């Protein structure tokens, strides 16, 4: 028997206004795996995340979360299943780290937004997971970029989702924090979540993800393990430049010709 995927897109067509960004995208992510979404700017990577989290409507195709159609979820029910770490997430000044993580419990809040039972435990757990507990009381504007990224991830984990969508979690971070962000995605997958990570660095994607999905101009050009997707010819045509791929000790190494 096949496992029910945590997130599945079938032939999704979506866009903004008159422009079509996705023209028939398939994606299937199971619990415990990290899937890397790669492709040039404008290929539709962020739109995939928008469609899955229902902030971008889709015109055709089907989306399933934990086997049920996206439309069958209420707002709060969806936020309990699926959490997003947005790209370059800005955090509002003045809130403490803990207050921001607490916002991850919004889909569980009771009447008048009163904290739900078990909130405190979930917040603590998410903050320990991301090593943000140490600076729980600090105002978010005093954090470094890497610390901020971890706080946003903690907020997403506090939602207790089955699916975690990370939109360029490594942008604006130095090497060490990039590695840390990807390690946290891996850890989440080990905890049983399905993770989708949008990445620009293809070598990083090859190392950090179980499977890669290469998007170009709104369609999936290739999907599978890094050795299959990171092909010189495929990448060259997707990005419109000459790309060499060499075998390395830990998977393929992508070298664009400058």
């Amino acid at each position, binding site marked *: 028997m096949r496992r029910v995927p945590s997130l599945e897109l079938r032939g999704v067509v979506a866009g903004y206004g008159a422009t079509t960004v996705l023209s028939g995208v398939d994606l299937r992510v199971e619990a415990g795996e990290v899937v890397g979404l790669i492709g040039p700017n404008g290929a539709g990577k962020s739109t995939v995340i928008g469609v899955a989290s229902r*902030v971008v409507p889709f015109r055709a195709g089907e989306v399933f979360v934990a086997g049920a159609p996206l439309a069958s979820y209420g*707002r*709060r029910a969806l*936020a309990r299943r699926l*959490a997003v770490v947005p790209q370059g997430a800005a955090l509002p000044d*003045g*809130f403490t780290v803990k207050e921001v993580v607490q*916002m991850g419990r919004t*889909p569980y809040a009771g009447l008048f*937004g009163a904290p739900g039972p078990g909130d405190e435990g979930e917040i603590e757990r998410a903050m320990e997971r991301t090593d943000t507990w140490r600076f729980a009381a600090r105002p978010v504007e005093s954090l470094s970029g890497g610390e901020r990224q971890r706080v946003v991830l903690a907020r997403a984990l506090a939602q207790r989702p089955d699916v975690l969508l990370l939109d360029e979690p490594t942008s604006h971070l130095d090497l060490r924090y990039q590695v840390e962000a990807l390690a946290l995605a891996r850890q989440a997958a080990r905890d049983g979540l399905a993770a989708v990570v949008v990445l620009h660095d293809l070598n990083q994607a090859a190392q950090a993800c179980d499977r890669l999905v290469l998007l170009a101009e709104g369609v999936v050009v290739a999907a599978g393990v890094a050795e299959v997707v990171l092909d010189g010819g495929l990448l060259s045509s997707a990005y419109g430049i000459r790309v060499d791929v060499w075998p390395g000790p830990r998977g393929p190494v992508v070298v664009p010709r400058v």
Partner: protein
Amino acid sequence: MPLLVSTGALLLTVVFAAGIGTVHVPPGGVLAAIGRGLAQTIGAAAPGDGATRVADTIVWQIRLPRVVLAATVGAALALAGAAFQGVFRNPLADPYLLGAASGAGFAAAAAMVYGAGLPLLGGWGVPVAAFVGAAATVVVVVALARRGWSVPVVPLILAGVVIGSSLSAGTSFVLLAAREQAVGILSWLLGSLTFASWDRLAVAAPLVLVAAVVLLACARGLNVLQLGETSAAQLGVPVEALKVAVVAAATLATAAAVSMAGVIGFVGLVVPHAVRLALGPDHVRLLPVAAIWGAAFLVLADLVARTVISPVELPVGVVTALVGAPFFLALLRRRMSA
């Protein structure tokens, strides 16, 4: 904790302000008069005589309605300002951003000049016109800005500014066309608590209370909204419903305040801003504390307005602007240097 301290400060301010005027009543006398006033209202006591009766009349019949109305209006404006600043994620928003003041001003001016049929409403012609003017303007602005079921923020603010300017132009026209009534209209536009009475309070206070309950229910949603509308939606917040509820409740509070006291500026801008700087952006604390300090601020401003060049009264809006502007500039400077 800040809530308790603020409430205490407000009560002291009310007792203090109710004692000051042409006839001075010490705080103990004010409290005694309030006690007797309450007892008589519920029929538990007969009116006193002599000096007691004079003090009772001054405190209970004249000053206290005015002080409590000032507190209600101040609370309503500060609450509405804090709510608009939260929902638009802009610290420079104020209760009049969507045209409530211009709508109320135009309707009130028109009622004063052309309102021949309004005597039917007794003394309520101008307040009712102002309330309807304020609320109708915001409804029109929201209707102009909406796209289907959503109300995007930038078109909303633009529509508010445009409709507001048109209505202000209309008010100017009414002012010029009816010169002999211009002073009356102008002093209404600048805000005044002269017409305070328990009857007016009995209408305004419940409206403000309803608005306050709705806004407090929205407080946590407003916090999450500070992450941006997309992130809030992804966290399960019904963003569009939240925006409409906040705008509607804040408009109800604003319209109630404006209809009772005219257009009083700066309270709704400065007080929430100052409280946010002091307490942080958490709306669960910010909204009630801002309401309380808005109340205290307007009680004190009205005290200044009616005593500083007594027996002549300054429009209270002039006092709030005179005090508010330098205070606001000082806050901004401090914030920029921090």
